[in-house]
């Protein structure tokens, strides 16, 4: 299988702080990868760079064969707006804090971008949105506003919204961290359902270890801007090789 994401010696700094240091990382088409690690280890930064929410300074990054930096690109992203649009057309993101648009109904939250950005017909998009809402179990909420929904419901709508853009890569940035414990399950169930989508690559930053073990093809443990250990989940969780990984896993499982 070919790589859909390819980080080659990517370095990302915030001022004097180096968040990613000569980072190398590949994701295959349709692969589900979980990124774990202590906060500040750079795992969310990987997602934010992929979503073009953060620029990076050095190295090469490709998504679906498109390089992030343009040869003569200007500005912090070293790319034109047009080029950034091209990159983003292949990738979507689900945020920790949902970030639904509060002034739009659930249906409109999902429909707006495909109509505005992909220039699809509104009735076509609505049909697809209703299908997606049925999938996340929220069809009856289509005319409600985000403030009328629970956190778990909002996050499920956010997932439907991201999927409506038909991305090839979907990024999940701690999708259940802002939820009350009893709402985590319903969101994980939706994500678990997506794990069977063969064409969709998923990158998931999470602290839900059992879930990570269940859905991932591969787990990567981050520490200080590097991947310390990576592996197939059963091996990774039952027999971690690096002392730092063991330390982290025992601290998380204890807590």
């Amino acid at each position, binding site marked *: 299988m070919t790589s859909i994401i390819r980080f080659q010696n990517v370095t990302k700094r915030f001022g004097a702080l180096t968040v990613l240091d000569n980072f190398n990382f590949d994701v295959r088409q349709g692969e589900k990868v979980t990124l774990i690690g202590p906060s500040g280890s750079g795992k969310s930064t990987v997602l934010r760079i992929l979503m073009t*929410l953060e620029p990076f300074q050095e190295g090469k990054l490709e998504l679906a064969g498109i390089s992030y930096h343009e040869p003569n690109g200007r500005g912090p992203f070293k790319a034109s707006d047009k080029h950034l649009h091209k990159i983003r*057309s292949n990738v979507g993101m689900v945020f920790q*804090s949902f970030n639904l648009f509060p*002034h*739009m109904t659930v249906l409109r939250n999902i429909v707006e971008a495909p109509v*505005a*950005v992909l220039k699809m017909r509104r009735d076509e998009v609505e049909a697809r949105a209703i299908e997606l809402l049925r999938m996340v179990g929220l069809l009856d909420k289509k005319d409600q506003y985000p403030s009328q929904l629970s956190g778990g419901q909002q996050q499920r709508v956010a997932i439907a919204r991201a999927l409506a853009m038909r991305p090839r890569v979907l990024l999940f940035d701690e999708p259940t961290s802002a939820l009350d414990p009893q709402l985590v399950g319903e969101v994980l169930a939706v994500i678990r359902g997506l794990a069977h989508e063969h064409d969709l690559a998923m990158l998931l930053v999470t602290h839900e270890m059992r879930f990570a073990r269940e859905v991932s093809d591969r787990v990567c443990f981050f520490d200080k801007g590097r991947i310390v250990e990576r592996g197939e989940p059963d091996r990774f969780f039952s027999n971690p090789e690096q002392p730092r990984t063991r330390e982290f896993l025992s601290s998380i499982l204890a807590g």
Partner: protein
Amino acid sequence: MMYGYEWDTSSTLAFATSILPILGIGLIVTLKAAAVGYAIALVLGLVLALLRRSRVKAVSWAVACFTEFVRDTPLLVQLFFLYYVLPDFGIVLPAFMTGALALGLQYSAYTSEVYRGGINAIPRGQWEAATALNLTRLQLYRDIVIPQMIPRIVPSLGNYLVSMLKETPVLSVVTVLDMLGLANIIGERTFDYLVPLSMVGLIFLPLTLTCSALIHFIERILPKAGIPLR
């Protein structure tokens, strides 16, 4: 318009009643000036606020200087400048338009700050979600930022409407015959300034109170989460 008018100065009440129709004409001019000025301030203020966010440094810097300059110099000076200096450059506007333009310019500097604050108050997550959905900058502002900003800025924008309304009498110094301009003429001709000037003040009171009430009403009925523009 004053010629041919005679006023009944036999008693204060009769005098006040007889000048009311003339002041009514002035009131219309006052309202028109405020309406045109406010429309300019609302539109130009938004344009300035958006230009200030331009990624072209020179544009954002020039706009910042302009708004700062306009905010920090007196309205009266700007008004005189537009009225007496613009014609030197071949731009001759009627007194009323000059006045409304001066009001609009001054207040656009204020409203641009209101818009700027409103835009900055939109949570970062909204910008990021819009980016993740690949919206263009135009779509981002039109569909996400401005709709959510409106309910937040109505109170501040409303204050400036009331404030501008109260400042319209300044226009009388460039020969605009608003309420104050007319009251002055009546004073000159009857040697009684007390009644016409008091009347002007009294007419302003219900005007500004109505405006404030209207704004509070709008504030209450607007959906807090934002108003989709499309």
